């Protein structure tokens, strides 16, 4: 396999470009999208690369069509991705729920910009965090990842595909306009350095007849592929193990949605990832995700220089949320600060996790600039 970009060496590329290259190395062979700042460069890269790896990249009429095409491609056996920003992500919500309900592995990238509505197209924000988790209607479970560097954008995109395939679920990558357009040194590995996970396929006809069953007890049914010999019924209506609609029996809904939650939550230790920095002896903690984490790392260094025992918990997985790790942190530290580029979203999750065991303070910022380290330091030292 030849790749349309150099592998096994470092390059200096944008976050968007890193997402596209990682997707291709993870096995993505279908991209559908509609251009939007600041995610258009993902589409541009996919349009360039896909024909060279025997893949398909198409422009749809809008973002509703884009995610619909991606879901269809996934059922046809392709690893598939779409990318957008706030306005497009809003349009995708209905079908994001459809992907959850039909247990379709897809990757949806949202490079967040200032909102609501068309807002600030060229400026970063983190205002879609709650939307990524709860934007579609109904009880649902999905995975949300959040990179803070171009290297992480690359690494987490590969992880997003692997998680989507392993758990038959949509995975959302939440980046932002700063990361999307930022260029940074990133190591593009050789394919043999990357772990690539592929979805379970039915081992036999019995498994194929129950595409929404649980034959292995892990909550993840094998996924039959259209055109490979099995007749499969796929619907957004509440369905039984065979996939046929059963919308009036409470126990069918309870079993289906229960399993969709369980297949993620039973494996949350494997799904959740975070990094700590100087937390061991910390009495002040900062909890952050995405681009703001980089200001927070610098803020911790500056606070340490001033004799404040500060540390950072940087969340790479935003959902499922690790409430337990926050509670443990709250037992250790005096106070937790949550800097985020919105008027308070992650803050509420952290406060719930802290469970009253430490004071939690929001450091909100909107307008399109990442917090400076000094802004965080000043809030901590008062």
């Amino acid at each position, binding site marked *: 396999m030849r790749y349309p970009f150099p592998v096994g060496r470092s390059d*200096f590329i944008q976050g968007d470009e890193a997402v596209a290259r990682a997707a291709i190395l993870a096995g993505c062979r279908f991209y559908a999208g509609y251009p939007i700042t600041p995610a258009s460069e993902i589409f541009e890269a996919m349009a360039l690369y896909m024909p060279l790896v025997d893949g398909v990249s198409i422009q749809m009429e809008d973002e509703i069509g884009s995610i619909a095409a991606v879901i269809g491609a996934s059922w046809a056996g392709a690893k598939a991705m779409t990318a957008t920003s706030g306005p497009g992500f809003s349009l995708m919500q209905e079908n994001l729920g459809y992907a959850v309900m039909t247990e379709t592995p897809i990757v949806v990238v949202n490079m967040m910009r200032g909102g609501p509505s068309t807002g600030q197209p060229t400026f970063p924000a983190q205002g879609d965090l709650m939307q990524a988790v709860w934007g579609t209607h109904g009880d649902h479970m999905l995975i949300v990842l959040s990179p803070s560097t171009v290297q992480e954008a690359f690494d987490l995109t590969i992880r997003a595909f692997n998680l989507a395939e392993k758990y038959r679920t949509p995975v959302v990558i939440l980046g932002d306009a700063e990361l999307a357009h930022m*260029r940074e040194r990133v190591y593009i590995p050789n394919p043999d350095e990357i772990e690539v996970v592929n979805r379970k396929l039915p081992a036999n006809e019995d498994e194929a007849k129950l595409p929404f069953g649980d034959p292995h007890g892990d909550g993840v049914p094998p996924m039959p592929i259209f055109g490979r010999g099995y007749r499969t019924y796929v619907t957004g209506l509440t369905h039984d193990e065979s996939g046929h609609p059963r919308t009036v029996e409470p126990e069918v809904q309870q079993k289906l949605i229960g399993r969709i939650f369980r297949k993620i939550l039973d494996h949350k230790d494997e799904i959740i990832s975070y990094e700590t920095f100087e937390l061991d002896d910390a009495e002040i903690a900062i909890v952050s995700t995405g681009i703001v984490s980089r200001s927070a790392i610098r803020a911790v260094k500056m606070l340490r220089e001033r004799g404040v025992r500060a540390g950072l918990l940087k969340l790479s997985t935003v959902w499922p949320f690790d409430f337990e790790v926050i509670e443990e942190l709250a037992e250790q530290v005096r106070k937790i600060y949550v800097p985020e580029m919105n008027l308070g979203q992650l803050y509420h999750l952290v406060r719930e996790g802290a469970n009253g065991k430490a004071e939690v303070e929001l450091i909100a910022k909107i307008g399109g600039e990442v917090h*400076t380290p000094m802004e965080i330091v000043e809030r901590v030292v008062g």
Partner: protein
Amino acid sequence: MRKEVLFSGFGGQGVILASVILGRAAAVYENLYAVQTQSYGPESRGGASRAEVVISDEPIDYPKAITPDYAVFFSQEAYTKFLHTVKEGATVIVEKDLVPHRDTEFEERLKVIALPLTEIAEETTGLSLTMNILTLGILVGVTGIVGRESIEKAVRDAVPHGTEEINLRALRKGFELAEKLKP
């Protein structure tokens, strides 16, 4: 070592490309850490354009320039807006013809190189567009922030195919000017 470089002007002057080339030279050809960021409005030409490069020998946390060690100003608007954010003693390159109103008092605390960059680029290559690459040559020549060979390779990588030689001519003119400007 953390060095911050600010490039600023208006859209269409190659502000962002110049920053990308510098970052690439550092990250790919000098094995340093480098981050390039940019901020611009929705228009592709004419709006204020600003790009930053942070170069370091260790991983870069905060990716933006706080107090630039080096700065380039291609427009009056950019000069007026950002001059006062640079570090004391910073090396500053100014497009003299496009920045008529200067803060001479503040400039005394800096190392200022003010030249008719567009005109020199035009004379050197016949293309005023190469002004951004000429400026890179001056910046690298004066500061040594990356090696000359690295920036030449990065220019070759980044400029449109077929324009390599003309851009390298602009770059080398920048090196030449830098030699004369060095104390």
